[in-house]
């Protein structure tokens, strides 16, 4: 284990350095996400105003605001570019440069991305959590912050990130078959956005869809951590959903290993 960490630690380091190389790119990406976040705030604001009721499917407007910003924070924390990266490496054939090294293909991606993420996490988490907490305090008149809830949220986010990472790796391997992944990736992002509750909370959906979606791996991505943060789950419910997350981590981890084995047997390196 220690040996493994020694091998992969430089990838964290390299990922971090890469992230700092293209600072402007990083900044604009975050800025774009923040703008998107405000757009959905104004849309929901309009929806609540025209609805005339204080609550909508169990959500009050302040809760909706918290939901939107937590969704933004969570999706940024757990985002993973594995699909795109693998797709590109397969498309231009540079995947072979990773294969000539005595290391696990998936792990190099994981650690490189963790390095990339350190900066995002460090810069974003404090202002966003602070902002959300200030909102909640103003709306309800008392401090809602709960350190245990917050820690559970972080753990849940780690699970969610791992699910997302391995799911994206699996999806990226499709590039071995269809060669170029851009279109498929767009489609996947749309579907995942819907199924993970990023676009609308599950309570807005018909009952049977809500139940179905909660069991799909995508709910474990964004929905579960946000619900945990908002204190919607407790006791056995909490244990169940975090257990479900862990279950999906293992499933996609195993699947990615299996697909890698199958894919490399049929690998056809493009170019050169």
């Amino acid at each position: 284990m220690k040996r493994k960490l020694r091998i992969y630690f430089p990838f964290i380091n390299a990922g971090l350095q890469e992230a700092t190389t293209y600072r402007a790119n990083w900044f604009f990406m975050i800025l774009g996400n923040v703008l998107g976040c405000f757009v959905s705030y104004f849309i929901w604001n309009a929806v609540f105003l025209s609805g005339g009721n204080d609550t909508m499917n169990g959500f009050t407007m302040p809760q909706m605001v918290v939901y939107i910003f937590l969704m933004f924070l969570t999706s940024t924390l757990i985002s993973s570019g594995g699909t795109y990266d693998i797709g590109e490496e397969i498309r231009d054939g540079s995947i072979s440069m990773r294969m000539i090294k005595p290391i696990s293909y998936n792990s190099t991606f994981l650690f490189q991305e963790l390095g990339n993420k350190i900066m995002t996490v460090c810069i974003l988490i404090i202002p966003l959590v602070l902002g959300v907490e200030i909102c909640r305090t103003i709306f309800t008149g008392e401090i809602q912050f709960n350190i245990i809830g917050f820690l559970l949220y972080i753990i849940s986010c780690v699970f969610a990130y791992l699910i997302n990472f391995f799911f994206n790796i699996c999806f990226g391997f499709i590039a071995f078959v269809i060669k170029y992944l851009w279109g498929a990736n767009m489609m996947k992002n749309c579907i995942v956005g819907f199924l993970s509750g990023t676009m609308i909370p599950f309570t807005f959906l018909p009952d049977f869809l809500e139940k179905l979606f909660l069991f799909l791996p995508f709910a474990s991505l964004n929905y579960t951590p946000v619900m945990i943060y908002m204190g919607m789950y407790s006791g056995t419910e909490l244990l169940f959903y975090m257990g479900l997350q862990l279950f999906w981590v293992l499933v996609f981890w195993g699947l990615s290993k299996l697909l890698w084995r199958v894919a490399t047997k049929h690998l056809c390196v493009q170019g050169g």
Partner: protein
Amino acid sequence: MIYVENLRKEFKKTIKDPGVIGSLKALFHPHNEKVIAVDDISFNVPEGEVMGFIGPNGAGKSTVIKMLTGILTPTSGKCTINGKNPAEDRKNYVREIGVVFGQRTQLWWDLPLRETYGVLKEIYEVPDDKYKKRMAFLNEVLDLESFITSPVRTLSLGQRMRADIAASLLHSPKVLFLDEPTIGLDVVVKDNIRNAIEYINKQENTTVILTTHDLADIELLSKRIVMIDKGKNVFDGTISELKSKYGQIRELHFETDTQNADKVLAYKEHFGFVDDDISIKTEGTGVQVRFNSEVVPVSEMLSYTLGKININDISVKDADIEEIIRRLYKREV
């Protein structure tokens, strides 16, 4: 050291009719065709040898290299390197080899060069003291000092290639695969790289497989050549064997003050050469004639030429390897 037996690799390829209509057709009705990239190739390389692996573009050289380095899995056949099968135990196997693909880089694009070596040190678990010694050695051979702190994306092609070769040698591999290591480089850098490869081969008895289109690389570095074309073995032997087998080409060079010497001489008509067997180049007063000495002996050619026109200076040379290869490639394609 390296045993390759009946190696074969097939690909599926989608055939597309030309133009937009063809693309649309292929979108709905892809028509697949089996392409045999490597067809029954066998060779052995003993330890410490530099083997030149040549063939025209698309012959299947890179595919063979990719199978030998564990990137591709052969459709059938076997290769054993260092007693290991690359397709079965990739992670363990690649520990003992170094690979350079001239058209790609294994360096970390956005990081200073030094960082790449740091990462490689951990990947291959090179101890600190060994790493220091090795870097000093590589620095001496490949002269990395002046750009080791620059990000890789800012390096020139020559610097990048030297850095890439150093990266492939950091862990003192037993076998080194070089796929076109001198592609696109100037004469001086080419020389540097050849010297470095030769030095490392001599110093550490590293087995080297070298593919290249620059035959000077081969002539300077390797005694042994394996040539493939259309996925098949065409030639396997030393350079002198190649010369004696195919090298019946001689080069006649003379200076003359006769105008239009080639027309006056009219070799083709006189001796009945076919297209492939003779080529004439005129440059001012100098004329260069390449001909097949099996069709017409050198002595006959000389006496005919000397008798026909006024010669100031004349010389006859063996054809260089490049000419032989050129003829071989043309004949096969």
